[in-house]
């Protein structure tokens, strides 16, 4: 996984709540069997509208997405995270994320930052009036800074450490091989099995 320490970039204000993963990447894109090549599918339906915020030239090359509450609801498709990353986003800011989307993001090094809606609104206003405004998301200090905005955010220490180091979860888990084997040895016999030996 790509490590995340700090990132400064321009932001896209997405004034929408309940942005579900079907909007982030529509289902027909899910037939691909790779983790890349999803950038053209990102917000595919909305991007057909030339006025959609992502299509506006002043936001081209932005790397920070600032969205309304309940971002990433619905389907568990990790393709939504890959599509955002393939397009160039490094971090997403919202007042509330759906659980599965947030978990998927953190496993891929896409930092999801939870800030109060007032701060999201301030970032919207800033980037709407000055699309070139720089927004810095710093995971080391757990702060988001931009002109007139300085906000701290929470992220549990373990998730933060994994992101800062870019650690592979599976390798970490496999350090507990003895504990897994011991658990397997004491599982009751009545538990279901998919294969009959």
């Amino acid at each position, binding site marked *: 996984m790509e490590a995340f320490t700090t990132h400064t970039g321009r932001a896209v204000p997405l004034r929408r709540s309940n942005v579900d993963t079907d909007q982030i990447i529509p289902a027909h894109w899910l037939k691909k069997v790779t983790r890349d090549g999803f950038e053209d599918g990102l917000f595919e339906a909305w991007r057909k509208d030339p006025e959609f915020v992502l299509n506006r030239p002043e936001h081209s090359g932005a790397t920070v997405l600032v969205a309304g509450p309940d971002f990433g609801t619905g389907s568990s498709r990790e393709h939504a995270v890959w599509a955002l990353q393939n397009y160039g986003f490094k971090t997403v800011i919202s007042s509330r994320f759906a659980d599965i989307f947030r978990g998927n993001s953190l496993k891929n090094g896409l930092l999801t930052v939870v800030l109060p809606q007032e701060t999201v609104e301030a970032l919207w206003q800033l980037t709407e009036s000055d699309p070139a405004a720089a927004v810095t998301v710093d995971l080391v200090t757990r702060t988001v800074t931009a002109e007139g905005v300085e906000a701290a955010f929470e992220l549990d220490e373990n998730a933060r450490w994994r992101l800062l180091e870019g650690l592979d979860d599976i390798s970490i*888990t496999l350090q507990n091989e003895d504990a897994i084997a011991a658990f397997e040895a004491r599982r009751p016999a009545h538990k279901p099995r998919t294969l009959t030996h």
Partner: protein
Amino acid sequence: MGRTLAEKVWDDHVVRRAEGEPDLLFIDLHLLHEVTSPQAFDGLRKSGRAVRRTDLTIATEDHNTPTLDIDKPIADPVSRTQLETLRKNCADFGVRLHSLGDDEQGVVHVVGPQLGLTQPGTTVVCGDSHTSTHGAFGALAFGIGTSQVEHVLATQTLPMAPFKTMAITVEGELPDGVTAKDLILAIIARIGTGGGQGYVIEYRGEAIEKLSMEARMTICNMSIEAGARAGMIAPDETTFAYLRGRDHAPSGAEWDEAVAYWKTLRTDEDAVFDHEVVIDAAALAPFVTWGTNPGQGAPLSAAVPDPGQYTDPSERLAAEKALEYMGLTAGTPLRDISVDTVFVGSCTNGRIEDLRSAAAVLQGRKVADGVRMLVVPGSVRVALQAVQEGLDKVFTEAGAEWRHAGCSMCLGMNPDQLAPGERSASTSNRNFEGRQGKGGRTHLVSPQVAAATAVTGTLASPADLAGVPVPVEV
């Protein structure tokens, strides 16, 4: 202090607990399908890892599969590649797979329970958000992403962040004509699409206890639409009766041991939930959605709401955008909304009981002119049972299309889709923009409302058909 059902199941699966780290949980059952697994198997190959427990893993083909001409090669080359990739991955890694054409094939969340693999007190995961379905058995069941699919394949465990607990108590009895689907749609409208965020919901109370397993699965299935981590219902005699004798249910002495354990899986009297919601069952009525998220719903007797009535600016904006997308005008009675498509099926409402209830409404009646109705069983087993009961004949004689098992029109990944501007009454779980096909408009409904709507051509409940006589059979 006592523990809740969810806490008991969680505690029984902790492999490792350490201060400041997420608990490492053992996973009893891992379900796979073609869409969210290819990149996970790829990851295993790249790191030279095997599937740790093939005996706790099972795969089925469902999202991409066509529901017509299943004996012919799949027309869409990208869908075909994805299914062929799953077949190769399962063969290479020794995973049991039920492919298109197999008697056990079907929607992954219909297949697990019908095989008896979904059991009380187990942890179940799948790279699919509707894994919450399995909570109907008192299992702790989570939808996961592809990175986690790879993690479970490699380790049979998952590090999981702690959760909060919510009780949704449904007091009293559901009135006649009100189903589990109406209940869960009403719950989501009440708590919102983010209302369950961070919580495992336990559904309890008299109305829940009286539900069949199929109905309980419908409820737990849509927990994710309220943003919940999972939904659960305590196992009871209804659960045990459903499981007894199924292929993978325990038997003999193991059955007795299992039942003794399952009976301990109830929230203790003195347990405390982090949040509680109480619903009065008697006040409920058939419920449908008017908007573009599952929380935007109302009783069928209501009208399309005026966005101006929302005080919260983001809700108001969401309602405005929803009405625009749905092509609806505030104040229009929901019963006046005409549809051109009716879909009965999906992991929410594609089980035998759902087909029976839709057939009971359609018996002797006809699908309205200009309406296309698709009936798609959730699995091949459900289809075989329906045929044995003659339900397929009821559907085809009414003018509906009887299809092969699969996810079908629940999502736009296979040939069953809405065309731009088409409007459906659908028993599936999501009314998101474009979910059933680009530009398609979806109203989520129960199987009974779907069938009645097919007859009238406008959103309707079976009670609305009282004036439409059913020809007497001779």
